[in-house]
């Protein structure tokens, strides 16, 4: 760690100025642009990743922190995790949570982005203010939402029953059937601004001439959207979905603050299970296993998605 962050970045720079010939020197110089960021990422992402992987094969208990001894125990942690029904359930919840969140965030975000692309009074101001939910620390959002969603005293239920939309209060966070949907709802709320901003930016980049040409061809709004907007927006869509997926799949603080994984484990996700194993049960080995599964799930989806959308992604060489 020490050497990685401190001394290694230097060599490319110094050798570049020194003995190497012009071609080699050029190449090194070019790498000089990229090397600091790469080294930083190796230190801040690569190193934890490797550490987590080794930890999942070790018997890592509180004692380890005192003695430094963490004997390797093969696949024992992995077996323990895979035998635990909670793990299978949480895997399923994670997928539902992620798919639901992304679908909601993206659809609403895109709809708002398209909507705000029209010119009307106050559109800029409203767009800026809409980002506010994103600014509030998640710990706080979760607390506020927990109050809003409370079965008996929550504002949402008093509004719904007041308007006679529901006959009895919805047990948002206290029923196993509804709680996961409620966490998805809150996460959609948090994610809309990010999706909207980035998709709006993407829309601004689509040349208006294309729309003019489309209008000459007599294309309707929906066809214009389908055949001009969506295809040209695809690279942005890819970035939004990939970033959204990766941040959603590992979500932890929101669920911890909203439901704590309950009721009856109905909102346990891979993120909360990792936390529970590592920091509540102090079973760091098993916690690391779930963490690795989380990373793996994420990686598999990312690779599949990026393969399918290769052209949107790698315009560089």
């Amino acid at each position, binding site marked *: 760690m020490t050497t990685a962050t401190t001394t290694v970045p230097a060599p490319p720079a110094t050798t570049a100025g020194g003995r190497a010939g012009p071609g080699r020197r050029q190449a090194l110089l070019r790498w000089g642009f990229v090397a600091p960021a790469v080294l930083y990422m190796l230190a801040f*992402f690569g190193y934890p990743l490797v550490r987590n992987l080794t930890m999942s094969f070790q018997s890592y208990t509180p004692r380890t922190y005192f003695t430094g001894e963490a004997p390797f125990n093969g696949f024992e942690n992995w077996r323990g995790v895979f035998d635990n029904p909670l793990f299978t359930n949480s895997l399923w919840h994670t997928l539902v949570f992620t798919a639901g969140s992304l679908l909601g965030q993206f659809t609403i975000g895109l709809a708002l982005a398209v909507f705000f692309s029209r010119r009307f009074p106050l*559109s800029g101001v409203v767009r800026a203010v809409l980002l506010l*939910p994103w600014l509030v620390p998640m710990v706080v959002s979760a607390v506020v939402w927990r109050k809003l969603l409370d079965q008996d*005293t929550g504002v949402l239920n008093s509004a719904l029953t007041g308007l006679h939309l529901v006959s009895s209060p919805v047990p948002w966070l206290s029923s196993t059937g509804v709680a996961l949907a409620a966490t998805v709802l809150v996460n959609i709320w948090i994610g809309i601004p990010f999706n909207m901003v980035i998709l709006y930016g993407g829309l601004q980049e689509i040349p208006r001439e294309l729309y003019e040409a489309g209008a000459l061809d007599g294309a309707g709004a929906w066809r214009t959207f389908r055949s001009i907007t969506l295809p040209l927006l695809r690279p942005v869509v890819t970035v939004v979905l990939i970033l959204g997926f990766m941040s959603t799949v590992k979500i932890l603080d929101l669920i911890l603050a909203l439901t704590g994984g309950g009721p009856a484990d109905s909102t346990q996700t891979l993120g909360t299970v990792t936390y529970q194993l590592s920091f509540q049960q102090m079973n760091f080995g098993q916690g690391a296993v779930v963490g690795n599964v989380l990373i793996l799930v994420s990686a598999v989806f990312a690779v599949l998605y990026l393969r399918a959308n290769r052209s949107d992604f790698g315009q560089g060489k």
Partner: protein
Amino acid sequence: MTTPTTAPAGPRRTPRPVPGTPRPSAPRTRRSLGSTLVALLVLAVLLFPLYWMLNIALQPGESLAVTRWLPTSPGWDNFRRALSTQTDSLVTSLVVSLGAVVVCLALAAPAAYGLARLGLRGSRTIVFGTLITQMVPGIVIANALYSAYVDLHLVNSPIGLILADASLGLPFSIVLLRAFMVAIPKETVEAALVDGANRFTAFVRVVLPMSRNALITAGLFTFLFAWSDFMFALTLNTTDDVQPITLSMYEFMGAHVSDWGAVMATAVISAVPAAVLLVIAQKYVAAGVTGGSVK
């Protein structure tokens, strides 16, 4: 890999559309007024939870179980109590977040340029790797960093927190800036090189100014990520010396169990600096995002 049909590549062949006029249809007043109404309605729905937060903050001495819909007799007591304890933390948050922006941009901008334009072998792998980093859960990073930080004596130091917080924005910034820089016409940079500038000078004198908007966007997002960081603040500090607002609020919440008014006031206060920044820099938020020909 370069495909002429992708969006970032498109605009450079066409004149820049006037910002804010994406649709050719003539504006009709009634329709646009209707749009404003719809926009305000959307705003009201989406901001309701935040209104509720403010509502609670403005109702002094009330228990949440009986919150009224409107702060009919608003009071600033809660804010006064919150401000009296949170000022230091706000300053810490500001310093740390700005520091993270500097570190992040200093790393991301050259890297993005290198990945976009310098034809390095393995660029694609690096970009992919950059995306992959987003998968590593924060808690895994924080755990591993702690032991490394202890050896480096970076625990309880603002610099340590700045370095860690920069990681929150770095991958996003690299991806964003790279998408932007791919679209900067090769000819412009080559012209500078012919004029005798070396790659780095060309980068500083030509590429960076052209990427100004994207840099601001990346910086803004990094600032917001760092501002709302909780995990690193919690794990990389063992004392109260470096205590950003998120952590301070968490502790405040734990200690003032039933003082929801003050907790919510703290939350409102914590959102203000970021909100101000967002409104000031609003035009950059959308403008810089996808790259292309914004000048």
